[in-house]
């Protein structure tokens, strides 16, 4: 049900101005110009890349289900429209604390490290260090080994310290206990294996997908809490090191951003980087979405911005084509910049 609500809600957010596939690409965190722009235009940062491995069939099945329930109507060209019952289905649903834009699946790295650390500590406490590591990824194993060594994990107090950090940080979260329980059930130790998605789904009477969404929501708020104040959770914040993406740009956009900040113009950057100006414009839009101090005045004056915002309001649309007709003196690039501001 959570997944269903999520998909329906995103369809609503896109306001029928995209095809159903836009939701799929958003959830998978597709790193294409279109999807990234959509994130800015429709303010969908929280949902970007929530499910990097989402299977197309599972998504399509959900769309069909929404159709069968008559929450949406499918229009030609893979477009759609929410029905009245679709809209009322969206009323009073729980809000989940996603922050996809800043994690994009990286929360799983945090959890992989944590779960191997917890397993190791559990065995260490019980004096039996012969065990099969639950994380098989060598990079994670290596990371954990270094972490444990450099933090003197065998000083006799390490378990207590980590426990204290885990409990107090989780207690800070407003997420309900059910979410925290799911996360902790995915941890295991000596003679206490973790639970599979199938098992948790039975315990909670939810589908596996829904359980996983709750889990992701909880991890996002948890890591937010862990990294919010420096020094508050010394161990956990090390484990969350570089998991949160602070300036989430694609590599290429990042190179453009460096040049832009040095004062080069779009045309100059395009020559230097041997890329089309339209590509450079995509990068600038991406930068604008991510950088709170983006110098809009380089490209637009306040009056233009106001005109666009009025047009959005009056015509209830974020479709560039329509906006262009209403504010013909601005280029598509300028319009996209205004939308990127998201206000």
């Amino acid at each position: 049900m959570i997944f269903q609500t999520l998909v329906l809600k995103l369809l609503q957010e896109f306001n029928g101005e995209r095809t159903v596939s836009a939701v799929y690409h958003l959830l998978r965190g597709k790193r294409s110009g279109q999807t990234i722009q959509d994130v800015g235009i429709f303010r969908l940062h929280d949902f970007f890349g929530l499910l990097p491995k989402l299977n197309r069939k599972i998504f399509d099945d959900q769309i069909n289900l929404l159709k069968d329930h008559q929450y949406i109507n499918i229009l030609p060209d893979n477009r759609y429209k929410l029905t009245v019952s679709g809209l009322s289905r969206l009323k009073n649903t729980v809000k989940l604390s996603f922050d996809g834009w800043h994690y994009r699946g990286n929360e799983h790295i945090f959890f992989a490290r944590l779960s191997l650390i917890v397993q190791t500590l559990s065995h260490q406490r019980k004096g039996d260090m012969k065990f099969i590591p639950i994380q098989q990824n060598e990079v994670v194993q290596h990371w954990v080994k270094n972490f444990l060594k450099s933090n003197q994990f065998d000083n006799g107090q390490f378990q207590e310290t980590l426990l204290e950090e885990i409990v107090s940080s989780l207690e800070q979260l407003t997420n309900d206990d059910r979410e925290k329980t799911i996360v902790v059930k995915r941890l295991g130790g000596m003679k206490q294996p973790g639970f599979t998605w199938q098992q948790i789904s039975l315990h909670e009477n939810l589908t596996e997908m829904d359980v996983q969404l709750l889990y992701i929501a909880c991890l996002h708020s948890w890591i937010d809490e862990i990294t919010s104040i420096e020094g508050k959770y010394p161990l956990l914040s090390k484990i969350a090191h570089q998991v949160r993406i602070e300036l989430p740009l694609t590599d290429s956009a990042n190179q453009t951003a460096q040049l832009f900040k040095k004062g080069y113009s779009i045309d100059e950057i395009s020559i230097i980087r041997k890329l089309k100006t339209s590509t450079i414009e995509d990068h600038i839009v991406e930068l604008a979405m991510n950088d709170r101090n983006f110098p809009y005045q380089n490209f637009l004056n306040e009056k233009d911005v106001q005109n666009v915002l009025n047009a959005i309001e009056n015509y209830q649309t974020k479709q560039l084509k329509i906006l262009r007709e209403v504010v013909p003196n601005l280029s598509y690039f300028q319009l996209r910049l205004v939308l990127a501001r998201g206000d």
Partner: protein
Amino acid sequence: MQLEEILYKHFGHRSFRPGQKEVIERLVDGKDVIALLPTGMGKSLCYQLPGYLFNAPVLIVSPLLSLMQDQVTQMKLLGEKRVIALNSFLNQQQKQYALNYLHQYRFIFISPEMLLQQQVKERLKQLKLSLIVVDEAHCISQWGFDFRPDYLRIGELFDYENRSPILALSATATNKVLGDIKSYLKMNNPFQYIHSVDRPNLHLSKRLFQHHEDKVEWIINHVLETEGPGIIYTQSRTKAESISNLLLNVGISVASYHAGKETLDRQFIQQQFLEGTIKWIVATNAFGMGVHKDNVRQIIHHTIPSNIANYMQEIGRAGRDGNDALAILLYAEGDEHFAKMLATDDLPSEHHVHLYENYRLRNENPHNMFQNEEISETAFRVLDYWMNQETSAFVLQRLNKMRIDKMQDVNEMMKFVQTEDCMRKVLVQYFGQPLESRPNNCCEVCGIQYDQIINQRQIEEIPIENNSWKKRIESILIGN
């Protein structure tokens, strides 16, 4: 040092099991060896122990990533640090590092695909190995022709003067397969240790049904009445999911296991299964090699495997502690059609051969067939291999023959299902061996009584965790 001393020192075993010592002694003499030992007999030891006799690395070619990972983990559990798996999990940097320090490892596990990479080949050429092992060597002939052609090339690599001895290990090789192993590995008049494939403590049952659906109902009743631990094999992920959900609903502690499960889930399932909190596993053939639970009491086949070797491997998961175990094969009319479809599904077709030719004519890289989604990855690998070996007319013939062989394999399986002779005898004879003796409760045909082999189900509550998250994390980290 005596071999027995080394056995005890490094592995904690007091004596060798049949075959192990013979095999190791021949290897020490520098001879090539083929060892056919039944599932669970201890084939790994035949290359693990020599690792402590010689002063150079042992190279082990292993077919499955998961199996390889598991073998490495098992070695590390035994306290061996100088062990590495070279496979596609490594990134370029890790691989380079591993290659540079390759000579320092005692055991090097590697996949055939990796073995044939130029970079790896060159490095191996410089390296002095003490022993070359091909584990699950029947894969050469079971997979080499129609699934992973790189298997056929392993031999090319070690075809030089003064190479170290080759050890080929398998539990399920027919005489034809033995022949393939010898010739493709270019083995040098190898010593063969052939143990009977029969596992007398596995009792063989079969059940015939009118309708496909009846089988699931039977499984549910059977699992409700008898005691595990057990594995139920079925053909697809969806089936594994649905059967396990039905069992969960009647209160059985069960998990599904297939290639679509994420790795952490697999670990949890294996741990819980080992520990006994999960009693049953509903699996596709992804669950098998590398499962080290020795007290599995039942194997149920919801669908027939596509060949006898697979059946042997799968029932071979049971009774590894030497105690009695029961294998039940379910069959409903028409199952063989499905099995044949599944078995031949991924072979390249005639159409693919023509496509490939067209690409060549256009001077376009045939690899694009796969990129253009005109063919699956496996089918392309196979097609590409053979198209570079012989003319398309031959390839067409060959593919046709593969298809017929695969159907024939299913027919062999059907003979086993339908036999009115002793099932054990049919099985053993398939591998070209005589049946030496029949245990009590030998098989369905000879007569079998389940209650003399397995126990009634002890109904126990599945302990559900009602602990709060705080309690749980506390008890994991600091106990109590």
